[in-house]
């Protein structure tokens, strides 16, 4: 199918060649709502040249990439998907700071043409920032299918910005979009768009604006004035100094607006903005009867009160089964390959050095390639189609019994791949309390490394059902502990507010790139800990400290949990990489038949303890980054105690079930 993209109201002719020889540097930022195809466009623009950058001081990641276009060397930044700048969430502040602080040459506002009104709401706020904006009117094909035709020229002239219709999934209109951006950047002109709100509001914005003009502001005076009104004078950061008089004035004006409308000033501003967005959308849209029956029928089915759950179990079961089956196969193949190079018959210390240095690298391969990569791939697929939000929808009611809301399901699922990105993924929770408790629950989710332990120790020797029992027991434990955590930490339960994007066919390219990007950013966090931690352990071993520690742990390891004496060493090594726990016994004993080393009871106890006892170093670091040292250490300490208690109880209870 081809979509004809007509010439919009812009700028330079597409064939115009810039002067050859010297490259011109440019910076473009992508901004827009979530689920509008922003990442798809970003991927299309930047190809594989992407990396994830952390915004200094804030826990938000921005994807950056490069685009070579003629003589232009363009840095492209994908800002987080947000609905407004008004709730002061981390993502919103970072986007705002980026646009104002780094001053990109052009901001591309990516807009979903099937929900124009809602998208224009953000556009209006973006325009108030007074930066050059080009609108990418995305998914025009989907809009057409639904019977929505948008007059982009009229829209462009109403808003005062160039508008380019695009279908990012097919790359349609993207070239023109870039040409348009370059043209706008050359003219260095801020967009002229300016929404006019109700009289009583405009008058008060004007008053504040008058007080603000002439000052050194990081923001346009009008934008700062509106923000001051919205925050009732609290966001004094938008002005150059701590001006009490200004804050007081803003508060008074906001109160006047509140008296007129009977609602908080910030809500009144949202109402006003939506009024303009709605009027603009009605003006440029013409609707005919259209249909997208299939996507809607699938939606109905996958959120059905019975079939929805059946489908969900099949899908999630399929994901995990694929990873177990495929990962196990590939992992064995890779480690067998590398074992060829293992120094044969070397001393224990030699082996440890090998494990520390080369092993860190091999672990990356035997873990990341077979398990993490396919997991990320499948998860990205579920995200890209929009299915993951249906899972959140279906499970919200159950999650609420514990205290979570449905969105927590997403990082928890991610945790089964690797805890590190899952802890970071907890940012999707709006409130700190939910974020912390979700992250705590995430660290108890057995990641792929722990899966390797459970599979090789338990599933291989005692059967898959014992492994399944450990997984299910873990879910029950998480539910109980999370519920307790919600009881202990004060706060109100928070409700779910989530957009459910329309189903769409996944773009394999986007999914693949997303997978690579995620894996890359994971490796940069994990590898230093793998290798560094391995070296430290080798040193501990050589200096004899490790043996000392192992001796100190004896009462717990042998006395309380009934494990073999050397299990202490295993668990210490496991802090760096959990799969050491099953790799090391074969190094120490020179056999891969773990049944010769452990009794079945010890296998179950060790696997359960390994699953719970501590988040690995990389995860502790992720927790520290997200929540600070104190909370990271508290969670770590708590889980050590938890694992010891559970291990000891299992060692006493399981024999009653007939486990030798």
């Amino acid at each position, binding site marked *: 199918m081809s979509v004809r993209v007509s010439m919009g109201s812009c700028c330079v002719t597409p064939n115009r060649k810039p002067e050859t020889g010297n490259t011109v540097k440019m910076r473009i930022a992508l901004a827009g709502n979530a689920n509008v195809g922003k990442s798809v466009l970003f991927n299309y623009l930047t190809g594989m040249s992407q990396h994830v950058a952390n915004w200094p001081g804030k826990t938000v990641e921005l994807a950056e990439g490069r685009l070579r276009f003629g003589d232009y060397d363009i840095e492209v930044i994908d800002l987080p998907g947000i*609905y*407004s700048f*008004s*709730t002061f969430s981390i993502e919103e502040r970072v986007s705002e700071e980026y646009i104002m602080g780094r001053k990109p040459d052009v901001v591309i506002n990516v807009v979903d043409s*099937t*929900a*124009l*009104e*809602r998208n224009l*709401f953000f556009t209006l706020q973006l325009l108030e920032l007074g930066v050059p904006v080009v609108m990418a009117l995305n998914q025009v094909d989907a809009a057409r299918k639904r019977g929505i035709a948008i007059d982009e020229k009229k829209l462009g002239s109403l808003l005062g910005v160039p508008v380019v219709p695009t279908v990012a999934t097919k790359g349609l209109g993207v070239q023109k979009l870039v040409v348009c951006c370059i043209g706008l950047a050359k003219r260095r002109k801020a967009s002229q768009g300016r929404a006019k709100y109700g009289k009583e509001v405009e008058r008060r914005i004007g008053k504040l604006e008058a007080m603000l003009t002439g000052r050194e502001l990081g923001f346009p005076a009008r934008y700062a004035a509106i923000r001051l009104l919205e925050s009732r004078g609290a966001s004094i950061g938008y002005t150059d100094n701590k001006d009490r008089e200004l804050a007081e004035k803003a508060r008074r004006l906001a109160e006047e607006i509140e008296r007129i409308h009977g*609602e*908080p000033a*910030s*809500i009144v501003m*949202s*109402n006003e903005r*939506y009024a303009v967005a*709605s009027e603009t959308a009605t003006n440029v849209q013409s609707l005919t009867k259209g249909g997208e029956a299939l996507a809607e029928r699938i*939606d109905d089915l996958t*959120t059905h*009160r019975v079939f929805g759950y059946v489908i969900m179990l099949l899908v999630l079961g399929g994901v995990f089964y694929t990873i177990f089956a495929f990962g196990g196969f590939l992992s064995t193949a890779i480690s067998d390959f590398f074992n060829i190079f293992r120094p044969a018959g070397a001393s224990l210390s030699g082996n440890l050095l090998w494990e520390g240095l080369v092993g860190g690298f091999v672990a990356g391969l035997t873990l990341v390639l077979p398990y993490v990569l396919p997991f990320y791939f499948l998860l990205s697929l579920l995200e890209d189609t929009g299915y993951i*939000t249906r899972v*959140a*929808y*279906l*499970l*919200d*009611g*159950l999650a*609420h*019994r514990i205290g979570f*809301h*449905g969105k927590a399901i997403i990082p928890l699922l991610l945790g089964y791949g690797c805890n590190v990105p899952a802890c970071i993924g907890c940012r999707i929770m*709006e409130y700190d309390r939910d974020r912390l408790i979700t992250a705590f629950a995430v660290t108890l989710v057995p990641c792929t490394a722990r899966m390797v332990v459970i599979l090789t120790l338990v599933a291989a020797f005692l059967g898959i059902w014992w492994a399944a029992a450990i997984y299910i027991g873990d879910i029950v434990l998480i539910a109980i502990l999370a519920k307790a955590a919600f009881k202990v930490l004060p706060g*109100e*339960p*928070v*409700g*779910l*507010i*989530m*957009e*459910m*994007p*329309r189903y769409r066919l996944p773009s394999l390219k986007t999914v693949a790139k997303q997978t690579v990007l995620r894996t890359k950013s994971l490796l940069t966090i994990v590898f230093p800990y793998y290798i560094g931690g391995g070296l430290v352990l080798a040193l501990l071993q050589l200096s004899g400290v490790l043996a000392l520690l192992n001796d100190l742990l004896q009462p717990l390891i042998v006395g309380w949990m009934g494990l073999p004496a050397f299990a202490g060493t295993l668990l210490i090594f496991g802090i760096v990489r959990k799969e050491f726990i099953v790799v090391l016994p074969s190094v120490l004993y020179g056999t891969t038949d773990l049944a010769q080393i452990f009794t079945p009871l010890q296998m179950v106890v060790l696997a359960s303890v390994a699953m719970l006892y501590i988040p690995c170093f990389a995860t502790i670091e992720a927790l520290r980054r997200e929540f600070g040292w104190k909370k990271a250490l508290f969670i770590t300490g708590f889980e050590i105690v938890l694992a010891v208690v559970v291990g000891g109880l299992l060692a006493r209870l399981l024999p009653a079930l007939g486990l030798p």
Partner: protein
Amino acid sequence: MAEKRTPEAEEYLEAMARAREAGNRPTVSELASALSVSKASVSQMLAKMAQRGLVKCEKYGEIALTQSGAAEGARVLRKHRLIERFLAFIGLRRNVHKEACVLEHAVSDEVEKQMRNAMRHAHPAAVPLTSLGNGESARVAIVDAGTKASQRLADMGLTKGTRLTLIKAAPFKGPVKILVRDTTLALGRSVAGRILVEVSR
């Protein structure tokens, strides 16, 4: 005043009045699933109600209210909505719909009148979003979900006067799925219960 109906008959009338408002005529099986009873008992009940001149059967198995049936159905529905508003007003946040279903049969016309008078100063005709039926549309009246959540909801398009449609609710007291400004949103039951809407006529 009309003769006293059993609560059961009133539930039937209310369900049909609701369908009538949406421009539908329910079938026996639709009524059965709306009231969560068996088809057999629906047929039995409808036969009784037809005898009393409240309903009549139309073509294609559709059931329509007679004039007097429609009037009584509208009365029950009106009471139901008033009670919901009242319960929301006195701070009930959960099971507002369920509680109203029980109370509506016990509230006499006299009590209803007094209640309506007293509620005049509360917001007119606003019910919690959760009390809408599947496919029912309404306009946003009051969003009282806490500062941050209210702002988020406003930014996602739930501003005063905005038309929304409830698509369905998830089981296990799960979220409701609504359509607003061409966007589908999932709202947790607690959040949805704190959004009051006016049912459009």
